[in-house]
């Protein structure tokens, strides 16, 4: 990776960190649990990395490059990663929605 790309990625990372702090700092305490489980679901974004990784491993296996054994192990890791990330994403979003559905104002039914 050239130094320009590295700097750009680090730049994005730092901006996102500040944005995250700004977004969250004024959340009322009653929403802390849904906020936590909602952002927890977002951390399942690693599923994107997992899907990309399985594609690389698949490509190397099909083309017969590198060490086949390592690539098969890599493919299995990727598969399991996708599974767990999906549980995190789907479970996280639905459970957050269920919780938020229970929060009611006075007079709501």
């Amino acid at each position, binding site marked *: *990776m050239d130094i320009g*790309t*590295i700097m750009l*990625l680090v730049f*994005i990372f730092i901006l*996102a*960190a500040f*944005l*995250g*702090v700004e*977004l*969250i700092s004024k*959340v009322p*305490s*009653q*929403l*802390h649990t*849904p*906020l*936590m*489980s*909602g*952002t*927890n*679901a*977002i*951390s*399942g*974004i690693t599923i*994107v*990395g997992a899907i*990309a*990784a*399985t594609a*690389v*491993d698949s*490509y190397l*296996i*099909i083309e017969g*490059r590198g*060490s086949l054994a*390592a*690539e098969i*192990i890599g*493919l299995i890791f*990727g*598969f399991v990663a996708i599974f*767990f*990330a*999906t*549980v995190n994403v*789907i*479970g996280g979003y639905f*459970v957050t*929605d269920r*919780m938020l*559905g229970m*929060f*009611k104002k006075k*007079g709501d039914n």
Partner: protein
Amino acid sequence: MNTASNIINALCFIMYIAASIFFILGIKKLGKANTARKGNLLSGVGMGIAVIAVFINNIIYVIYADGVGHKIALFFMIFGIPLFAIIAGSIVGFLWSKKVEMTGMPELVALFNGFGGLASLLVALSQFCAGKALTNDAFSAITLGLTIAIGAVAFTGSIIAWGKLSGKKAFKKNVPVPNFVNGILCGVGLIGIIFYAFGYSSKTGTGANALGVIGIILTVVVFIVLGVTLVIKIGGGDMPVIISFLNALSGLAAAFAGFPIQNTVLIVSGCLVGASGLILTLIMCKAMNRKFFDLLFKSFGAKKSTAAAGEQKEPKAMSIEDAFLILEAAKNVVIIPGYGMAVAQAQHAVKELCDVLEENGAEVNFAIHPVAGRMPGHMNVLLAEANVPYEQLKTSDDINPQMSNVDVAIVIGANDVVNPAAINDESSPLYGMPIVNAYEARTVFVLKRGKGTGFSGIENPLFTNENTVMIYGDAKQTVSQLVVEFEN
């Protein structure tokens, strides 16, 4: 062929930007009560876009594959394998989220968080196994090592937190000299990353060399163990802090997983989660007047409070009938719930009591301490499940100024968050922690199972105050019996 892959790359990049915007808007809306549900939906849409984008991006490999046979085989592998895992994961996640009881929510959040950490750890390992990896420079190697480190700690740390929250005995252990052990583990782990980074950046051709493999195994093992030793000594009442911290870690792991593959959506959304988790951690620490550093590295409640040496007063117990007579005359009632309400699953009974009190002409409010329960906002979720409108749930800052006008404060399974020692006893480990000033109410009812102290093992002078009466027994039964008294 080159133009095709350029177009795909550009399309993918635009979709990643769109996904990031959805995540940002989603988190923003998630922070306000009336838009929270929509916010959750928006961030779900963002996730969908990101997943579709990466599938589209993977088509590039099909384009580059040699020959039609290879292309077809690769197409099926690239779509078939992930889709199978996604379908299986969706079914498990969906069913789990529907069947869980609200009282089991802290455990579930911890467990899901552990899965996120595990996934990031595996992603890094899978990238490592691909060997060629996308680049072979020190920066990629170090970020990949950090993904493994943070992901592993988030994984085992969350699993331990899950075990502790579900009350499994095996998870109530202590590590001898924890700071020393954790320090050594951390040091060895970092050496592992350095080994790996050297092996990685100095290698030639494809495949990892021996130094790299040793480094990576060392890193994985050490940080898996560190997750356990770091969390296992942390006690029940500190759980809200550690859960939000672990949440931050799993986000950070996802962000670092994005560096080696230069994936912007991973970096942005992982970092958003990391930052928000860290903020929540600090809010929780502030609510307990504790420094985060102390929480991780000093044990709490180990030193017994010595101040209790003076006269030992016995708390006064009261029968349900007498308690009812006091409650019947009360015009202003505040209910202060704690973890005990969750354990007794008393939230529905509490709502009934709240209804009969209101019918009786009393004003009823709930005072929720930020760290009541085992996760941030735990009490709010339970009371929302029992249909208590959220306007009735007040923070301690709102309630405290009016506390002297309150006729009866009912403390249900809370202890340290109402301990007046935090205000007037400088020798107490709780000193300085903001509390709900229940002791200022005219009468205080404390619903408690037995005479023991809270998780911290600290004596609570509130229980022996003149205006405090104890109602011993299961909180749910006590509350239900009070409701029955009102109905008669």
